[in-house]
């Protein structure tokens, strides 16, 4: 299964939008946090986990999904949210903690929830898996279309929830896909010192389901592998496990000094930035012209700028609204 021209444009557009969005967020994040960096200050307070470099995973997978499909994401959800079609204005506003945010400012960047596109998050490692399996169960029981994808990091694979969810999805043959973003780091702990085997896709055998590893942070290869897994799920053939090699270009969170990285790793990663790589390939393959790409880039930027403006211009929530939405209305 190869991506069509339109799909490739869509993928590139979403990668660029995600990158532009995070670049904008990163800049704003430091506002009010100088001269002494204090996470609590500025228009975007709290922790901030960027996904720069990991965009290929999101677009390669989400190219096969539609609004009714379910995605659960993690503490690092922006690229996935954008590729899944989460409302960018309201997501930006949520990250700013504004009343117009997806959750009226209650959730923040680790809790992006958009019912329109069935997107949810948990900031607890591995805990998006259960809900994704449950959504897949709901579709199977109701004979409703749709698959559920849980994105997790390679560090999350060593969490018990992974094992339980994979087994449950396999036993019940659910339309579920677990996508591992293997950026080789769990904060400061490298994969090889936390995970007993090199290739988590091999863990699929423990559940009698297909597992595939995709190397190279390559949107084309990811598209292929994800397409197969998702088609299987849609056909009622049960769950799959994908491990996708990717790179985290930035720190684990903003403010991370990254002293744990081996010397030279950062530079090497910058060289491998998947966005310019895809750009080059689109041109080489004759799938997009320079002017088409420039248009995508400027449109994406404009889209991001509009979203940021929307967020900035929105009102803070009423403080006492903190007390609402504890229970269903």
């Amino acid at each position: 299964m190869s991506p069509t021209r339109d799909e490739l444009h869509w993928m590139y557009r979403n990668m660029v939008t995600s990158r532009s969005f995070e670049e904008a967020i990163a800049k704003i994040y430091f506002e009010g946090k100088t001269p002494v960096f204090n996470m609590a200050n500025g228009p975007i307070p709290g922790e901030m986990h960027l996904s720069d470099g990991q965009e290929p995973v999101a677009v390669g997978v989400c190219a096969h999904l539609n609004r009714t499909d379910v995605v659960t994401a993690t503490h690092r959800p922006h690229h996935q949210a954008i590729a899944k079609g989460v409302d960018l204005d309201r997501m930006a506003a949520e990250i700013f903690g504004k009343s117009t945010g997806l959750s009226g400012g209650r959730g923040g960047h680790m809790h992006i929830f958009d019912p329109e596109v069935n997107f949810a998050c948990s900031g607890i490692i591995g805990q998006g898996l259960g809900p994704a399996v449950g959504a897949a169960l709901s579709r199977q029981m109701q004979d409703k279309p749709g698959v559920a994808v849980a994105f997790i990091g390679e560090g999350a694979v060593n969490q018990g929830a992974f094992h339980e969810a994979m087994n449950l999805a396999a036993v019940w043959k659910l339309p579920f896909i677990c996508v591992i973003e293997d950026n080789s780091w769990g904060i400061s702990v490298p994969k090889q010192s936390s995970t007993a085997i090199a290739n988590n896709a091999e863990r699929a055998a423990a559940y009698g389901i297909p597992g595939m590893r995709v190397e190279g942070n390559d949107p084309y290869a990811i598209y292929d592998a994800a397409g197969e897994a998702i088609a299987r799920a849609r056909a009622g053939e049960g769950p799959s496990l994908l491990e996708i090699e990717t790179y985290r270009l930035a720190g684990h969170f903003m403010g991370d000094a990254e002293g744990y990285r081996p010397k030279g790793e950062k530079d090497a990663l910058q060289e491998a930035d998947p966005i310019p790589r895809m750009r080059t390939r689109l041109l080489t393959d004759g799938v997009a012209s320079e002017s088409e790409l420039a248009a995508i880039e400027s449109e994406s930027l404009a889209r991001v700028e509009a979203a940021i403006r929307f967020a900035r211009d929105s009102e803070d929530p009423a403080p006492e609204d903190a007390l609402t939405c504890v229970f269903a209305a």
Partner: protein
Amino acid sequence: MSKTNERRLTIARAMAEAVQQEMQLDPSVFVMGEDIGALGGVYGNTRGLLDEFGPQRIRDTPISETAFIGAAVGAAQDGMRPVVELMFVDFFGVCFDAIYNLMAKNNYFSGGSFKVPMVLMTSTGGGYSDAGQHSQCVYGTFAHLPGMKVVAPSNAYDAKGLMTAAMRDDSPVVYMYHKGLQGMGWLGTEAGATVHVPEESYTLEIGKAKVVRPGKDVTIVSLGMGVHNALKAAMRLEEQGVSAEVVDLVSLVPLDRDTIRASVAKTGRLIVVDEDYMSYGVSGEIIASVTEHDISVLKAAPKRVAFPDVPIPFARVMEQYCLPNPDKIVEAWSRMQAA
């Protein structure tokens, strides 16, 4: 004593009946948990459901509480209304993130755009020598963390009405049933729990306490099994000429502070009976809820009869020494008089 037209059910049967009737009405309701299918639930509360509804809607699960309770959250967010069982509340530690960080909070995190209409039912309580990992109540633990309604019936009538209400609630509800009230063949059952239950479906409002015995000298507040201890103590106190009012909390979250406060305002005295550990739990909260509101109504320092802050011992003599009972409640009254 039983009247004609009475339909006395155990709590186990009342729970199963509520689920059965709701499943007949609402195709989105289904049940998941360990041994809830062929076995009908270790505590009998899903008996008969597999035969009627089949294994799609009555799902035995692997021993994977994190996955299947997490899955209930995901299914609830996707339009289903799961009723999910945690066999013993003591097992909450293997799956509590799914409960208090997902089930409890996703409505809030999403600003209300995701609803999580699910019921987590779980057995509580000891008294039959099942030791420290199978006898706890941990009411306080569940009630402390925001986002979950928490109910605990003391009798079959309430059990049915609460279960139906819980399944219809758009918020997650934790339904804590006490093993000693359940009416299982192999476990002694407090007789007062097995009462008349109407056949038709009905709901009990979640968040309302009940004055189950009116009185004027002292208010005894409790829940679940403790209500029966309180009622027995009240009868003993009556022999001493003391008129005790008994309040059954029914619901821990929301907590009906008004009913408690009104009762204590009337009686001037408060004893809280709780099978959960004493410190940092239900008994403290009830006393604080009364005293922070108005101390002028109190004629004596409030007292609590709760499980001491020790793991639950196996040996019968030790466990019984720790458990609340009518004697201890009567004795609390005496201490109150002595002070």
